[in-house]
């Protein structure tokens, strides 16, 4: 249940740590983002870029506060109903940043579990990168 202004953890090595939802894509304005939904986010908190990387290409690729990207929701606190009758619920809200108009993640790594629904929605690469899907 992620709306405008909700803060979400980031699960990749793109440099962003916490992002804020500014738009839920492909939905009614009243609707919220659940697992597998896409949204536009703005970076609120980013990892500081180490001094050793300053001026290199790698430093330019890292995200900074205020950057805007697309993201897909991978975990929610709100229980998600599955077709087999079970409900899955995680302890936090988390997302993975995506390149615009694709299903490929911005980073090269995904840390932490993701929900199994992503595979059905076409985010195969993301699920493969994740250490485990529940």
């Amino acid at each position, binding site marked *: 249940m992620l709306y405008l202004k909700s803060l979400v953890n980031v699960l990749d090595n793109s440099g962003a740590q916490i992002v804020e939802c500014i738009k839920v894509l492909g939905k009614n304005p009243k609707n919220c983002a659940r697992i597998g939904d896409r949204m536009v986010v703005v970076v609120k908190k980013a990892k500081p870029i180490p001094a050793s990387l300053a001026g290199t290409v790698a430093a330019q690729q890292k995200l900074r506060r205020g950057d805007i990207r697309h993201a897909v929701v991978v975990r929610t606190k709100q229980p998600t109903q599955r077709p087999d009758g079970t409900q899955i619920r995680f302890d936090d809200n988390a997302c993975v940043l995506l390149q615009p108009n694709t299903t490929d993640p911005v980073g090269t790594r995904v840390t932490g579990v993701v929900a199994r629904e992503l595979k059905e929605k076409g985010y195969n690469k993301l699920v493969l990168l994740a250490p*485990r899907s529940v």
Partner: protein
Amino acid sequence: MLNIARSSNKVAYLTAPLAVLNMMPLVHTRNYQLNMRTENVVKVYKPPQRLVPPGKDVLKLTQEKLFERYDPDGEKRKLFSRKNIMSPRAGDIMQVTKKDKSTFIGMLLALNRNGLGTTILLRTRIHGIGVENRFQVYNPDIEKIEILRVPTVRWPKEKYYFIRGLKKYDTGDLDALLRKERRKEAKRLEAENETK
């Protein structure tokens, strides 16, 4: 003459003078009967076979039928029955095996007994994140439910929702913990065999 008339009208008419007969009005009578009453004819059929034998509760009977359909062995019913002393309680560590052999291990936070709608809520911690899964017990997809471990000390609570996010009481990565224990046991058994 009067006496005769009293005893029988017929005789009276006969004995009466003709003038009297002429003065009497003509009476039209009919010798047949009209069927004035219409009868509503209803066909009577044989009663169909009773679905529920007399004296039995419909709700209970249907529930029994459904239980037999979704739990033919009766193992799940036996495990979750209120009469079973060893039935799961909050705090137990349980494992759910599905038909596709995927498993989920977790601590039981809540058991909601509701007939066929009985559910269990299992919680575990995977890669540092708490994951909770609610299972429908009588789902035909679920092959087996078993209790792996029973705690030595129980908190006096029916539901264990309070452990969420509390470092002192929260579950660890139960899957990893059990794997580690199994490895240890295997090693111990190997060592025993070597000494023999």
